[in-house]
């Protein structure tokens, strides 16, 4: 097996909340790896810690109120990002690892043209001249499929549609040919036809540039179509991790199972014929008060005494391949007979 490009081990990122309601354990012992050139999907519902995980990798967590706990470990190409000097870190951020954020409008600067914003990265990281950087910006706009790039390069963000702004964000992120692109819900705010354009663009760019992509989304459909491997998060932890085909064919964590059953599907018969959706009862708890034992137990249809008392570790699910290919944080793996057909 090749060396992973990124290795995250036991990452803990906590926030001290203002009104003294305690510490939010937003990311609480997360481990995963990203291989060179692969697409890793990171899924989970609102508040499970997806964005905090990605911001931690880039060390963009606001301190205070946040802090990455001692014992956490983030290694990129063999270097520990958590102990790098700010100068070394800046050289990696935006250059080797780039990020597209959840809200395109708030991450583009409204007072600069899109061309200047793309060129800036090339000037800072690759020491291009202004002229060369402008030419580079036009090339990038063309690469991400913006029509009339020579003209668009002088436009301001507000003169563009949401889909075009997201393309500009991608152009900015890719201007230095990063080895890893972290895309945080890159299509959530977009219409479905525009979402399809952006996902196809990311696929094509990844093939052309050979970069790895960490695709963060709450949409299992997006993951199924784009990711090689999937990490499912719940309540600040990884609860299941598997190659995409295995995860969808054999979801083993009751949360993954419930999430899949919650999605209304185009390829399923409608409610009239097949009845109700098998959702998950209850709601995600607050990050200041994760339940004891298994964090999913209050919503889990299989939970028994052990689940309430003891927190399960990530267990190997076997199923072919090397150990650790498919891992699941659930006691059912030690007692499979308790997995009754949907309770």
């Amino acid at each position, binding site marked *: 097996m090749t060396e992973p490009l990124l290795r995250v081990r036991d990452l803990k990122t906590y926030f001290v909340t203002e009104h003294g309601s305690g510490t939010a354990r937003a990311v609480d012992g997360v481990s995963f790896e990203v291989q060179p050139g692969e697409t890793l999907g990171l899924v989970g*519902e609102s508040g499970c810690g997806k964005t905090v995980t990605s911001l931690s990798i880039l060390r963009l967590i606001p301190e205070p109120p946040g802090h990455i706990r001692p014992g956490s470990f983030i290694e990129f190409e063999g270097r520990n990002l958590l102990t790098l000097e700010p100068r070394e870190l800046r050289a990696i951020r935006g250059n080797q690892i780039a990020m597209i954020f959840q809200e395109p409008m708030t991450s583009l600067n409204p007072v600069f043209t899109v061309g200047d914003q793309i060129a800036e990265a090339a000037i800072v990281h690759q020491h291009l001249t202004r002229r060369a950087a402008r030419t580079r910006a036009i090339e990038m706009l063309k690469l991400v499929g913006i029509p009339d790039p020579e003209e668009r390069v002088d436009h301001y963000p507000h003169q563009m549609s949401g889909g075009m702004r997201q393309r500009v964000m991608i152009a900015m992120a890719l201007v230095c040919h990063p080895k890893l692109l972290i895309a945080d819900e890159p299509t959530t705010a977009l219409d479905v036809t525009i979402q399809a354009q952006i996902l196809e663009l990311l696929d094509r760019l990844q093939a052309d540039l050979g970069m790895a992509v960490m695709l963060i989304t709450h949409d299992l*459909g997006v993951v199924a179509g784009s990711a090689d491997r999937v990490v499912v998060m719940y309540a600040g932890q990884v609860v299941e991790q598997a190659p995409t085909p295995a995860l969808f064919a054999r979801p083993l964590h009751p949360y993954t199972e419930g*999430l899949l059953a919650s999605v209304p599907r185009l390829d399923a018969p409608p409610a009239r014929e097949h009845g109700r959706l098998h959702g998950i009862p209850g709601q995600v708890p607050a990050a200041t008060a994760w339940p004891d034992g298994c964090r999913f137990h209050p919503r889990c249809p299989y939970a028994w005494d052990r689940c309430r008392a003891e927190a399960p570790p990530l267990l190997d699910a076997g199923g072919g391949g090397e150990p650790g290919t498919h891992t699941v944080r659930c006691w059912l793996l030690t007692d499979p007979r308790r997995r009754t057909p949907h309770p």
Partner: protein
Amino acid sequence: MTPALVDVRGLVKHFPGERGLLGLGRPRAVVRAVDDVSFAIAPGQTLGLVGESGCGKSTVGRTILRLIEPDAGRVTIDGQDVVALGARALRALRRRMQIVFQDPYGSLNPRMTVHQMLAEPLAIHRIARGAEAERRIAALLEEVGLDPSFAQSYAHELSGGQRQRVGIARALSVEPHFLVLDEPVSALDVSVQAQVLNLLADLQQRRRLTYLFIAHDLAVVKHIADQVAVMYLGRIVERAPAPALYAGPRHPYTTSLLSAVPVPDPKAQRQRIVLTGDVPSPAHPPPGCPFHPRCPHPKKDTRCRTEPPALREVAPGQLAACHFAEQPL
């Protein structure tokens, strides 16, 4: 066929072009938000209204309840001509038609408890007071699956799904026959979205409600709708019974929308049609067929660029506004 509970004919709503800052500059073009929209919904049924952002879905929902005044068209609900009603008769009809908004955060009064929010419509419409009001509020909370202890909570103390349940309870409090559901689950997490969709389906059965269900997610609409209308730039481009529309879309826009929906199955080998370009502005709809600049139909020709296709019946009950609806993509 039973007569429709909701009947909309030739609905038009244009927003005037605003001038730039300080009234300077040329006035902007008129926004043709809704342009000649017609549909009917039978009692107890759901019409799903889908389309991309800005195509006019919310404007349709609001004009038929006269939260916005239409420019033209006829709207009949429960046999009453909504457009012609005076203020007083309209207030009376409002009891029978309610709306639930997308944003569970913005649509609830932050200074009221859940109890106050539910008591208010009962008082305004003189439905119940005192002990009877208390009994109804408790029943409503139970019906939408909220613990009675939530009665004393404020909106900010509730989760998104709980707020949406309060919005639904509030709409139900006046015992309407017809609900406009304007993206009621779009802001919710999938596991909570499933809970709210189940709730809406149960309520419809139990109370025989009629829904106009506005959404941009075709999979959600498939789950809940009997009929589907697809909008593009202020117009309905396809309308059909749900099974027919999902099995055999006739408009190339519907086909493209369906093919763009991500399916949670990595084995699904689908032919994805990726549309080029953005949705044009409803202030400057293209001439001819409004979809022609993005249309992937191989037969597209000059007629598409010059002649607006009429919405016509191409199969029993299935209407499409495309010159080539007989040769779908």
